[in-house]
């Protein structure tokens, strides 16, 4: 198993966190981590964990199979609509991510969410499982517990 991209979240980890960057000049946090600060133009940004819990800031459901570069391995026949949202983390930064929930009646702006790292696709050549990051409603975990 490997993350879809190194450096997006802490891995391997029991409780993965998103990795962003913080500008040492103005303190602004962004995701994914980047070398330069888009807010102040500072050149000194440090990579740091930016959290695994937040609240849903906005959302939608992707109801048609996207064209490439979408690369989930799904076909028109196997495609399942997926939720997409921005989740506001403690610093105030809002991270866009797929949601584990795709039922609109279960999604409400302001609801607590938590990060989940889970299989996204299997590499057809190597057979390796590629991991993506998702946000899940916090209550799902309580139900499971």
């Amino acid at each position: 198993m490997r993350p879809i991209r190194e450096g997006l979240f802490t891995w391997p980890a029991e409780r993965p966190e998103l990795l962003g960057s913080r500008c040492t000049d103005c303190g602004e946090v962004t995701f994914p981590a980047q070398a330069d600060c888009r807010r102040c133009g500072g050149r000194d940004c440090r990579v740091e964990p930016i959290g695994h819990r937040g609240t849903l800031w906005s959302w939608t459901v992707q109801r048609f199979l996207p064209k490439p570069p979408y690369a989930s391995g799904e076909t028109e026949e196997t495609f399942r609509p997926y939720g997409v949202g921005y989740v506001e983390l403690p610093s105030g930064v809002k991270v866009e991510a797929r949601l584990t929930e795709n039922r609109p009646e279960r999604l409400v702006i302001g609801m607590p969410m938590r990060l989940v790292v889970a299989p996204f696709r299997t590499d057809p050549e190597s057979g390796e499982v590629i991991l993506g990051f998702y946000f899940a409603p916090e209550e799902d975990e309580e139900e499971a517990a």
Partner: protein
Amino acid sequence: MSEVAIIGIGLHPFGRTPDKSGQQQGAEAVRRALADAGVSWKEVQFAYGGSQDAGNADALVNELGLTGLQFTNVWNGCATGGSALHAGCAAIASGEYELGVVVGFDKHPRGAFNPRPADWGLEDWYGELGLMLTTQFFAMKIQRYMHEHGITEEALVRVAEKAFRNGALNPYAWRRTPLSREEIAQSPLVSDPLRKYMFCNPAEGGAALVLASAARARRHTTKPLWVRAAVVRTRRYGSFEVFSPSLAATVTDAPTVDAARTAFERAGIGPEEVDVIQLQDTDSGAEIIHMAECGFCAHGEQEKLLAEGATEIGGRMPVNTDGGCLANGEPVGASGLRQVHEICLQLRGQAGARQVPGGPRVGFTHVYGAPGLSGVTLISR
């Protein structure tokens, strides 16, 4: 700024034209604009133009004639037409030229756009995970906006209903069949809360304008229209934009707000003086948001304005009288100049069945799109 006049307008019908390339549709729009102005291509001193998917505008000389004019290709996302118009106005206002053409055209493959992440400064994972769709952005922007400002799904339906009703009055529109409220409200969800008939589709078409200095304009027409402002602005840090893996802690105004405010200041005209309005309606929600972002109403006031019919052709602030992007589709390169074309028809009193009553004097156009930029023009008689 010296005065810049629009003395000719031309449009190639929007929609699908399988037997013509995008460039042929662009050239046709130029021919129609030249004929409208009573000017020959040989007289044209410069041109600016562009497309997203239909090739270089400069190649139009293969159809129009290789006269040696200065021709500059413009590619600036959804503000391609606005940027071409801005550049054309600057070329005349500087005194260097007195007669020029701006043109936009396009021909997109069917279905949603599929941009490449690297072209937009993004990494592949963002596209691979299925996060890089403009439809998702527009859905999440209106979803948040509805939450903050009390806009309902009813308002989304009303905007689409108006677009197709106006499109039916426009012989150049792509979609010319009115749709009932039920047909719109029950059409399939594409990206919640937006449904099939609340989204525009990528399409084909061409639009062109002939621009002239004031002195030159008087040689060709007794009724020029004047470009009072042509402004393009890009996103500032913190605005909620398409293709954003994250948004800043503090959300700030969109580029639309900056472009509209600057245009009104430059023209010395206020939003209340505008008689006919064209707004980017990539989806129903975008038109609603842009009404307020451009300064025509307060955030949240749209619900009441739509219910009252204020944005209808006979209302007090008519919006997208030609059916907008919803009824015309969106050939990215041509869309902004199609808006200007419609405003010119309205100000000349030549808009036929969809003519705004009362002799409109001032018109406004607005585009917004990827990667977070906006173009606004103010035009008056």
